[in-house]
């Protein structure tokens, strides 16, 4: 059985007089023990909200509704009361955030913040806790850990702060680590250090890792299974190599085509996805990516596409997926001549080389009027 099984998770924010925002809309994925799972997507795709919902860290506010299940080790995390959730948090499931400075308390020395975790979940005190804390800092590669324990977050560099945060996260040998853009705020050489550190930790301790990032490169080097998110939905799930070699969902393909590669030549044109999430018009129910999609067909409008499962542990939500070379000719035929839709029915503004469409009309996550 999987360590974490997220099933049909949905998060909606409803505010009086405003449209309901579906930040997460039926997200399902699972994480096995010792597995590294990636959640990839651009800003506003719901990847961070997903992790916060699982951890029960979404700010409590009226109108917030979390639905679905997130079963960790037999317990549904979404149903737990605050107390038992706090017990699990930090001990069994730990989280690393993007901005290490704001995640650390600026007026408390690093050492105290680490020993606090040890005291809370492992009941360690005094010299034993201090020694363990120093060992932890040493393990995450902070030089001269004994002295660092007495220092405050602002005295450490960005990379060292992130290491300190990782030390706190792994203090109780959690079985699941959720890292939300852990290296986005860091420079490349420091990013490489932190990624290497995370890889080592996962390999040595058997901790499962959920890696949330916008960077496909980071995912390519780390993750066993990758979930691509768009507008609050998982649009494609696959293991690492198949995903990068043969993306089936047009969004995944578009993302891969958008990234300039270090090993490509100068002047090769990129193939961007036209438009942007925010520019789009309110889209009738159906595939949220359809307005920007070059492979759009009639069937994209109406019902959201069903999850299609294929043989190699891959699934995608698309009615007209990118064909795999050497597959049935019909699929290819359909791909080369996508059926155009009625001009009135579907705003076909998002074709390549189009100027970006209307601003500010329909924010990324699917929205609907509250009655």
């Amino acid at each position: 059985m999987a360590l974490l099984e997220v099933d049909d998770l949905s998060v909606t924010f409803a505010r009086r007089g405003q449209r309901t925002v579906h930040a997460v809309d039926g997200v399902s994925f699972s994480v096995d023990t010792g597995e590294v799972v990636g959640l990839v997507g651009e800003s506003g795709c719901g990847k961070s909200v997903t992790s916060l919902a699982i951890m029960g860290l979404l700010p409590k506010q009226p109108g917030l509704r979390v639905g679905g299940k997130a079963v960790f080790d037999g317990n549904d995390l979404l149903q737990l009361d605050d107390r038992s959730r706090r017990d699990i948090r930090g001990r069994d499931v730990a989280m690393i955030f993007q901005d290490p400075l704001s995640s650390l308390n600026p007026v408390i020395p690093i050492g105290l913040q680490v020993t606090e975790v040890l005291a809370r979940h492992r009941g360690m005190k005094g010299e034993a806790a201090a020694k363990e804390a120093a060992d932890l800092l040493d393990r995450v590669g902070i030089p001269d850990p004994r002295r660092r324990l007495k220092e405050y977050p602002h005295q450490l560099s960005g990379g060292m702060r992130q290491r300190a945060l990782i030390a706190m996260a792994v203090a109780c040998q959690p079985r699941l680590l959720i890292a939300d853009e852990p290296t986005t705020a860091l420079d490349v050489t420091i990013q490489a250090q932190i990624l290497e550190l995370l890889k080592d930790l996962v390999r040595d301790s058997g901790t499962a890792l959920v890696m949330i990032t916008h960077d496909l490169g980071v995912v390519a080097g780390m993750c066993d299974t990758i979930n691509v998110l768009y507008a609050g939905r998982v649009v494609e799930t696959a293991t690492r190599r198949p995903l990068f070699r043969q993306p089936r969902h047009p969004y995944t393909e578009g993302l891969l085509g958008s990234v300039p590669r270090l090993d490509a030549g100068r002047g090769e044109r990129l193939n961007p996805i036209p438009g942007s999430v925010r520019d789009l018009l309110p889209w009738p129910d159906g595939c949220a990516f359809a307005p920007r999609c070059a492979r759009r067909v009639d069937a994209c409008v109406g019902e959201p596409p069903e999850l299609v499962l294929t043989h190699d542990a891959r699934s995608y939500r698309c009615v007209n997926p990118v064909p795999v070379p050497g597959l049935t000719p019909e699929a290819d035929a359909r791909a080369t001549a996508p059926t155009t839709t009625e001009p009135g029915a579907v705003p076909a503004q998002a074709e390549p080389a189009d100027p970006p469409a209307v601003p500010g009309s329909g924010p990324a996550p699917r929205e609907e009027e509250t009655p």
Partner: protein
Amino acid sequence: MTITGGKKREKIDRLAELSAREDEQGVSLWKEAFRRLRRNPAAIVGVVILAIFVLVAVIGPFLVPYSPTDSIGIREGLVKSGQGIIPGASADHWLGFDHQGRDEFSRLVVGARQTLLVGVVSTLIGLAVGALIGGVAGAAAGLGGRWGRWIDTTLMRFIDMLLAMPSLLLAVSIAALLGASLTTVMIAVGVVSVPIFARLLRGSMIAQANSDYVLAATSLGVKKSKIALTHVVPNSIAPVIVQATLTLATAIIEAAALSFLGLGNPDSAIPEWGVMLADAQPYLGIRPGLAIYPALGIIITALGFTLLGEAMREALDPKLRK
């Protein structure tokens, strides 16, 4: 991107029309702030309070049933404050008399005008002087150079000195220096708010001067003076306006306090809420209403300004913009 054919563009334009909200012209920041202000219940309450207050202050004195300076109660023998007889509310005199037999309701209404005058004039004094000092310091700091830094440092040390003095003490000293009068109160209260406006405008101007769009304008080749006028100042005044609204509330309270201490208009014939409060002190045991009415007036008015000011701060805050 010139490949886009005419037909396609037509389609896009049509879609744009479809999606355009009521504002064809685009929404400026001020417009949007105003729109959010309108949706904020606190702002509505504040505006309603202030509208009533201003209405009373402006046209009230023409409509009051009695003269606020006429000791009508003593003449009619109803009020003998020496013996502790001050009648309360009645059908003719809605809020009763004050200790000199004057109609309390009329005094309260006419006092609103004085209170509004003191609040607005003293805030304007503070705003004008503070904005001048802050603007010069901010411009000097923005221009930089040896001279700019020197001017900025000198002005700001002066402001720091003002700020270091307790505001009431400062106001009392000024009032003592100039002699007790309404003008004194306005000047004293105004001076107290000078450092707030100066620091606020300077800080916000320096922040704007370091912003990317000022750099962008510089790189476009726009003159420094024009950048200051078209970018730095307009973007710096929003917090100052908010502060001015909030300062109106404190100015009214401070002016009342100074009047209460006897530094205001010595001629208690002209009603002013602070003076009325002071006058009511000896009779607190007999007729507490004499103190409660002006106090309530001060509190509600100050609340109105504070509500509106806070709502404006929220509406203008760029961080809260969607």
